[in-house]
């Protein structure tokens, strides 16, 4: 825990040292909220049949989709960004010289980003609920928290695996960008996956974000408890176990290759 706290403090201190950028990100959040509000207003207050199983409100559907996707994108890019930054700033070798496991270094390095992501998640939902009249009265917070963490674990695995690839190929922003768009399309962030063609829906089931968003919407908008979400929870748990194991194994393999080729600190 002490080590995790040291990483958290380091990243918090660096983030606060760029004050304008730090506060600007929250301003961006608020502006996005405004955009979502007007998109929701365009669609209107009527209950849409495609959204009936989520309570019917498009704005609520959209808000939860965007908020959870923000956390997912942190998982996808944060680890690779940490590796890349450590390579370019020259701190990677100094960190790797410490008697701490690489996977721990990687996870601790992303704690601050996860904290910010959780703050932004709340910043999306609370003003949404207060200003836009989205009802979270039924929300089952325990289910939402469990889904939130299982989603993070799933995408953490992919993010760690991706960090290993970045360790070797150095620049991969375009690839991860394309992957992000795929997740956006298939996961049901902006529209329900049921609107997709049948064969694409099959594909969408392979994306962990699809059950995660479904579960989060059920938990927050319909108040589903853990028992009612058990199917989704099992799916997310399996995704988490497989992806985290694959991610850590892949990252360790990449480090092994990097040590062999002497390219760890190269950028």
């Amino acid at each position, binding site marked *: 825990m*002490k*080590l995790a*706290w*040291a*990483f958290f*403090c*380091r990243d918090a*201190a*660096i983030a606060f*040292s*760029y004050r304008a950028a730090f506060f600007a990100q929250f301003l961006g959040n608020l502006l996005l909220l405004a955009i979502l509000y007007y998109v929701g207003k365009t669609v209107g207050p009527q209950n849409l049949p495609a959204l009936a199983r989520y309570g019917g409100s498009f704005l609520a559907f959209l808000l939860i989709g965007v908020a959870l996707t923000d956390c997912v994108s942190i998982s996808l890019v944060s680890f690779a960004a940490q590796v890349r930054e450590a390579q370019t*700033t*020259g*701190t990677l*070798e*100094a*960190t*790797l*010289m*410490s*008697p*701490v*496991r690489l996977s721990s270094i990687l996870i601790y390095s992303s704690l601050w980003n996860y904290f910010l992501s959780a703050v932004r998640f709340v910043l999306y939902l609370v003003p949404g609920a207060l200003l836009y009249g989205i009802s979270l009265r039924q929300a089952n917070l325990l289910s939402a928290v469990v889904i939130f963490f299982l989603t993070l674990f799933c995408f953490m695995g992919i993010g760690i695996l991706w960090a290993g*690839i970045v360790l*070797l*190929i150095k620049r991969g922003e375009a690839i991860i960008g394309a992957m992000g768009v795929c997740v956006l399309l298939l996961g049901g962030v902006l529209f329900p996956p049921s609107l997709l063609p049948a064969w694409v829906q099959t594909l969408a089931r392979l994306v962990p974000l699809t059950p995660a968003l479904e579960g989060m919407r059920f938990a927050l908008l319909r108040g589903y408890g853990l028992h009612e979400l058990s199917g989704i929870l099992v799916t997310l748990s399996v995704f988490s176990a497989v992806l985290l194991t694959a991610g850590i194994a892949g990252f360790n393999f990449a480090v*092994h*290759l990097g*040590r*062999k*080729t*002497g*390219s*760890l*600190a190269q950028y």
Partner: protein
Amino acid sequence: MTTETSARPAGLGAAPASRSPVAVDLENVSKVYTRRRLLGLRPGSGAARHALRNVSFKVLQGEMVGLLGPNGAGKTTLMKSVATLLKTSSGRITVYGKNVDSDPLGARRLMGLVTCDERSFYWRLTGRQNLNFFAALYGVPEKIARDRIDLLFDKLGLTSSADVPYQNYSTGMRQKMAIARGLLGDPRLVLYDEPTRSLDPLSAQTIRDWIVDNRIASPATTHLIATNQLGEAEQLCDRVLILNHGAVIADGSIGQIRDRFASRGTLVHRITCTGFSPRDIEPYPEIGLFEVRLDFTGTGATLMRVTTSETGEGLTFVLSEILGRGGSVSRCETEQMSFDEVFCSLVTGDASASGSRK
């Protein structure tokens, strides 16, 4: 390779006894870089570069050993291999008995690395914040870390800048920070990778003095220092290893290496004469005259540098040439080769030897 200990530079206290435990042990270590292909994921069979070739040596506890060699000789590869940052192609490296490949975490607990890369800190954080973070990373308990950081800042003269962002530090201060970080975990082995590179002479001397002082204070700590500064090696090291093309071509104290080179039978003479130009004499290896070089000329006197064999007639030949052509000799002295000259001669000799072997 040798495990001998050697004469220590004055002022460093007693040399490590030959019964001292082995701190670093390298056995037939080789490193071959192969060309990568397919997104860097698979080593190819393309051009291979041998960075280390069957390197074997031992460093005893308490020794300070210098790694010398021209650029590209393999010093950094060797340091990174010991530091667990690089995987060797073959051979075995142990640090106080811990194998760096099979137990890298165990080995890292015993080591501290002092790099010359001033980028290796967080520039937006203060010096103290940086060291606090690395202390946590090296597992130093909070209270001990606080005291140790204060002590290091004090000893390195950084106390007044401890809470200033690292980005405002001068190059010399950044190098001191690198030393502080290397020593934070109270390591039993300190690896220095060119600790005074890019420093002005005064700052470099300050760092060297500090290394000497620290060594006196912690005589059981072992030091391995890669440097291109031969004077630095002379001042700091008990023993040096000269690397060239990835292989160790000399191992011993600086005095031993110099003597060994002299015993190859080469002498350097400085001759001051008038009425003669060294351009009039060509090298004549058959009689042991290897080189005749003009060092200085002015107001009628000429200073020349003549390299001859110890046993041949080279010097006699040069002197008789000067006198025979109407010149006169006012001074002739045989000098001891400087370590710089020995080093250059060893490296170029090794290069030509490996060239002729090819």
